[in-house]
């Protein structure tokens, strides 16, 4: 097994410099004319009450691709931060880049000023500065951390974060982190430019005269709408090498085990732009936690994990070598590791499956799962009786002749949604798609995780929401514009989404695009309204809203302050798919959290 030497606590405890002593930080090597060092693959571990992290520029190479990287403590991914529920932690982050940096602790409950979003929670960390994060640990589970500055997350500035439970956990014998990400030799700003300039620049799985099984009529319909039915991922294996703990598919990463052991795999999607399908062929997985929060255990053979989500599973593999496969949702590549009881034995991964094609359901034509696979008219509603018809009946326009008009009927939008060039589609009949297993996984013949499978293990307080809020996810693929309610972050400067302190709100996210978006609310856990019942709605920090569908959550706004709210696809956020959520007023001393 390739692994990095452990970083002991002893060499971590050093005199940390505060902001005042910023000038004491030596110049980075590259600034003194020295060449960049190579960042190591994989990560060490840091823990304890005081932790030091240093952000610096490096080279990084994997899978025959090499390029610039931003590494933390010299590794990509950065070190595993291992904490314990109930402790206090002080983390000094030193910036040796030539640009500002930051660290966001994804999924952690903490005072807002330590949430690490420049311009929302704090000013950011200037070159040469050290910023000290200090907060109590109020939870346990599997999380991660990453930069919230520019596009550094794409360059390697991320790592895993594990919080041990205050009480012993007897559910497993062995504990592994499976941190999924991508590496590209291309500078992320150049990727952003290519997405703006070149149509489907990275997509080499389009429907062509020789590929794809769509009928001519269907192709014409998609063409008339000026939409691409193979628009699954914006950035693909054409430039990405998919990584597991920083190791590419050819690196032979091994997870060793002894037959009979129960292994906890902490699967973290730390990618910038990739949803992964996770499976270990022949080995069922018992899901025990989602986004760090325990759920009622259930068994699956495969699950799709959106960017920024985490799932914990327990596996008990038989003797032998088993491929742990993280297949990119668009099937343009995969991350691979071996789960093996024989050191040095690599498991052969299964081949990539066929590329995924969007269906009528993904256009917001109502739920087609279990129907006719998105052909012709609209089939059964997959058991959904109550459809959001909004105004009028889009089904009248189901003959393809008037499809254009029903695909952008802006009269269906609430008044606060800004209609403009940045909005190329309005889902005609968006339905709740919480029971959809993810693009490409609705037709497989084994058990796949769905949000409707998730039930909180410990009951939540029973409180009814007092207000509902509808937020539309809007975009224009052709111009590569992405926004909430038709307004880019740069256009909503002082118009945040406001919650009253301790208010309980039911938020409905309506996806008026044909892409799946992982939407993340900082500083809180919300409860998915997935039919599990008010007491057992699963807690999450990130929710996938399926194309043309809706997802609804209940949130109790009990963390005062300013919080970021955004799509966790990095280039969507960069294009403007972000907002600020404010929770006011701050409770007076002695009341509330």
């Amino acid at each position: 097994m390739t692994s990095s030497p452990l970083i002991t606590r002893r060499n971590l405890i050093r005199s940390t410099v505060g902001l005042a002593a910023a000038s004491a930080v030596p110049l980075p090597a590259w600034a003194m004319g020295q060449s960049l060092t190579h960042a190591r693959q994989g990560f060490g571990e840091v823990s304890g009450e005081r932790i030091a992290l240093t952000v610096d520029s490096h080279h990084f190479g994997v899978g025959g691709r090499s390029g610039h990287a931003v590494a933390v403590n010299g590794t990509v991914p950065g070190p595993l931060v291992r904490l314990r529920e109930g402790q206090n932690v002080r983390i000094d982050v030193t910036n040796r880049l030539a640009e500002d940096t930051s660290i966001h602790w994804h999924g952690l409950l903490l005072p807002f000023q330590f949430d690490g979003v420049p311009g929302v929670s704090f000013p950011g960390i200037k070159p040469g500065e050290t910023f000290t994060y200090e907060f109590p640990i109020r939870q346990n589970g599997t999380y991660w951390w990453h930069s919230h500055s520019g596009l550094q997350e794409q360059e390697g500035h991320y790592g895993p974060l594990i919080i041990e439970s205050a009480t012993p956990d007897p559910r497993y014998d062995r504990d592994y982190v499976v941190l999924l990400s991508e590496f590209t030799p291309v500078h992320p700003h150049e990727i952003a430019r290519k997405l703006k300039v070149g149509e489907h620049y990275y997509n080499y799985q389009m429907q062509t005269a020789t590929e794809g099984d769509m009928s001519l009529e269907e192709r014409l319909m998609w063409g008339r709408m000026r939409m691409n039915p193979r628009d699954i991922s914006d950035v693909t294996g054409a430039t990405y090498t998919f990584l597991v703990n920083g190791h590419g598919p050819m690196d032979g990463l091994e997870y060793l085990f002894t037959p009979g052991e129960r292994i906890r795999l902490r699967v973290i999607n730390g990618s910038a732009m990739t949803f992964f399908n996770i499976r270990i062929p022949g080995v069922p997985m018992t899901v025990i936690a989602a986004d760090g929060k325990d759920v009622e255990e259930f068994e699956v053979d495969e699950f799709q994990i959106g960017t920024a989500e985490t799932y914990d599973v327990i596996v008990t593999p038989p003797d032998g070598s088993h491929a742990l496969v993280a297949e990119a949702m668009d099937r343009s590549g995969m991350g691979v590791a071996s789960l093996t009881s024989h050191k040095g034995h690599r498991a052969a991964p299964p081949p990539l499956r066929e590329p995924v094609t969007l269906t009528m359901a993904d256009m917001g034509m109502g739920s087609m799962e279990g129907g006719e696979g998105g052909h012709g008219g609209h089939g059964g509603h997959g058991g959904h009786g109550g459809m959001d018809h909004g105004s009028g009946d889009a089904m009248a326009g189901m003959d393809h002749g008037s499809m254009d008009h029903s695909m952008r009927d802006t009269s269906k939008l609430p008044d606060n949604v800004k209609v403009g060039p940045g909005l190329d589609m309005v889902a005609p009949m968006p339905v709740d798609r919480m029971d959809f297993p993810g693009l490409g996984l609705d037709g497989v013949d084994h058990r796949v995780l769905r949000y409707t499978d998730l039930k909180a293990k410990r009951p939540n307080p029973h409180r009814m929401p007092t207000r509902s809020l509808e937020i539309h996810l809007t975009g224009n693929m052709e111009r590569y514009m992405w926004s909430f309610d038709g307004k880019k972050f740069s256009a909503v400067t002082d118009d945040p989404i406001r919650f009253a302190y301790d208010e309980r709100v039911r938020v409905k996210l309506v996806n008026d695009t044909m892409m799946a978006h992982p939407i993340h609310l900082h500083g809180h856990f919300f409860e998915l309204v997935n039919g599990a019942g008010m007491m057992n709605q699963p807690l999450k920090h990130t929710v996938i809203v399926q194309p043309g569908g809706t997802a609804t959550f209940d949130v109790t706004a009990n963390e005062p302050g300013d919080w970021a709210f955004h799509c966790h696809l990095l280039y969507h956020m960069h294009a403007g798919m972000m907002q600020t959520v404010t929770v006011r007023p701050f409770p007076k001393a002695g009341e509330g959290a």
Partner: protein
Amino acid sequence: MKTALALPLILFALPAAAQDHSGHAGHEGHAEEPAKAPAPFKLPDMTGAPQMDHSAHQVGDLPSGPPPAEAFEGPQHAADAIFGAEAMAAARAENHATHGEMTTGTVMVERLEARVADGHDAFLWDVQGWYGGDIDKFVFKSEGEGEFGGSVEDAELQALWGHAIGPFFDLQAGLRLDVEPETRSHLVLGVQGLAPYMWHVDAAAFLSDRGDITARVEGEYDWKLTQRLILQPRAELELSAQDIPEREIGAGLTKLETGLRLRYEFAREFAPYVGVGYEAKLGETADIARLAGEDTDGIALLLGLRAWF
């Protein structure tokens, strides 16, 4: 797709394109729409989903109004009190700018080709570039052609302001300067974008410094044979509102140019092509050419490069 089909398709697409954005201007701020209540919130009805706890169904319709008054209390920006208003204001400006205000650009050599026809081999360039944001862009265009070993016969430059008027189309307005056959300047007004059926359309009207009105419509379609081998039918039609004797142009349709180019994308940015092109003078313009003893139409073999950066 036969090239003969291209022209009616473009002409069909144009009104569609126009219709596509005719209403959008009014949508800014919903000026034309009556105010309406937000759609009533409905729970996902999970009938049919097994093992349902129906307690969630008793929520009923929740009010969807503004947040309670106390949500507006306290500081506008909570971090100001901790890190200072000045530092946070700068960080906020930067944060907003880097989440939606990206300016970028490209230079696209659409056609750089040799045109091999019996008797006279010609070269042609057709370049476009832009720089700007999502809504407003500076657009630059240049086209021209000439004979190998001869002089440049036609050359023009355009400098335009492009403004997004709908999801797929930009309005373009600006100046055009002809360098050859003689110096002449024009005002330009046009639209450019993606029409239904994925046709890239560029249509513009020109008002010259002599008061002549002309127009040009072009469209092309990328038909992917494989992921990298692309067949592109292209058509261009020119019109004139009046006779322009010094350019041997008669009023009406003046010129049709069609082409079929087969390119191979070694990279998206680098694609050599071969093709065949057909050009014809039309109507009165063709009559003028015939009287002068010139050819009115001709076929050429095309060898060229499509590239961008």
